[in-house]
């Protein structure tokens, strides 16, 4: 028995969310005060305020939560985490909800469908080269996921190139094999914790 052990109460989904977060997010402490929703820069564009999501997590409304666009509108500004009177690690919970939504394939149907695609494209480059490749990221992300918007973004790309703020080719780290081995092992650990 340990003094720090928490009682196993709450919905199955609540424990899924807490368990999928690397460091205990203290989600059970939420007072429903709304400081997070009030502080959020993109709060008005969210289908549910973070506080609402936490109530729904406690109530076990798994699918509604994972289909919500809320986590995808999180800009990682940490205002909520900083101000939360109960020290809930809200930003970390948002990351967890994004991962669970991707796993279930719900993210593709939300009104923020672009967000996971952007994250995934970003990751592909990092996995291949070890560093981010902005020109490649923008080109591939827009051509593959938002072909119609490519025209809009093109002048920005051209401006970046003209000012030498984009590389034409990616920069690869020397020990890319080492990085890929580490990421592969991390992937295994994630799959079989």
């Amino acid at each position, binding site marked *: 028995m340990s003094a720090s052990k928490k009682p196993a109460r709450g919905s199955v989904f609540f424990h899924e969310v807490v368990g999928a977060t690397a460091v205990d997010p203290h989600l059970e402490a939420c007072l429903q005060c709304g400081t997070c929703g009030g502080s959020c820069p993109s709060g008005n564009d969210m289908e549910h305020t973070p506080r609402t999501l936490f109530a729904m997590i406690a109530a076990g409304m798994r699918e509604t939560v994972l289909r919500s666009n809320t986590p995808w509108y999180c800009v990682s500004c940490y*205002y909520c985490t900083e101000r939360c009177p109960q020290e809930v690690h809200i930003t970390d919970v948002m990351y967890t909800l994004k991962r669970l939504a991707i796993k279930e394939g719900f993210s593709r149907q939300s009104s923020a469908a672009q967000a996971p695609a952007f994250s995934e494209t970003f990751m592909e480059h990092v996995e291949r080269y070890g560093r981010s490749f902005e020109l490649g990221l923008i080109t591939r992300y827009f051509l593959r996921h938002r072909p119609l918007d490519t025209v809009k973004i093109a002048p920005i790309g051209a401006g970046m190139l003209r000012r030498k703020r984009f590389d034409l080719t990616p920069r690869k780290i020397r020990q890319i094999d080492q990085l890929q081995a580490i990421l592969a092992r*991390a992937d295994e650990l994630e799959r079989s914790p």
Partner: protein
Amino acid sequence: MQYGYYPGCSLERNAGAYHDSTMAVAGVLGLQFTEVDDWNCCGATEFFSVHQMQAYALTGRNLALAADQFAPKAALPVIPVEAAETPQLVAPCSACYLNLSKVDRYLASSPELAAKVNTALDAGGLHYDPGSLRVRHLLDVVVNDAGYDAIAARVQRALTGLRVAPYYGCLVVRPGFQGQFDDPEYPTTLDKLMRVLGAKVVDFPLKAHCCGGHMTQISEDVALELLRRLLKNAAEYQADVIVTLCPMCQLNLDVFQSAVNRRFGTNFNLPVLFFTQLMGLAFGLAPERLGIGKEFVASRPALAKIGTSGEVEQERAVGKRAKRRNDQSLPMPYMPEEEER
């Protein structure tokens, strides 16, 4: 003073100006930055959204490489290892700073997580003991290690006449995974630095609000509105230039400023520079060495004001202490830090 230096992907290219000016200013202040060998991307805000263990492992590799490279060497066997100071790792990019400090802190707080991450790192022959590095942001090192006095002593061409809106953004001041060197809600170190350089610092209530981060790529509706708020606030206080300390903030405010103007029918024309660029100018360095000219919104017209009297027609005093007080007005609360000004 010796530091490990983690530039991050942005400083390699899109924020090359930040890297160049950082190096130039560090040289003047005697800060020695040694780049982490073969570092990789920190994962920005993207990896955590998709793959948790990979996100920790990715940053874990950077920490492991840096800890190894900058570990106190046993060259002097007389001095016990504990007595040597923890090596410091400096990141100029807010997101890199956040990820490096967050991973180090979380590994320290959860031995379980640390064990997992080290299992992953082991696949590449690496290992990281949390706490072996002290991660710091460039601004912290500049104002607290080099210090305001040393900076003031190096100023050759004071930025008088330039009205600066200091913009901190989010991740440098929040949530302070390795302690906070400034207030998370109303930071003031950059204000003070700009004042030391001779610039006129304008009020900028939104100085720690969000630029939208990657939202410019995901939802223009969200991102452009966030940018509009910031630009409007800086413009209302008649800033000539916004000064920032994060490549993402610079990119969003600078590159997407024209998009904001198009969307909202505004005509903001606010150049966005890195604080190191303004330091370099004040130190008398050539603008070319500082990457000035790479910004989308040209800064030359604003910088031409340096040395002028910098009068503006009227000070906007939104909610501030009224200049001329009638007899009936009530006193404002006492604020200790106002004494310093």
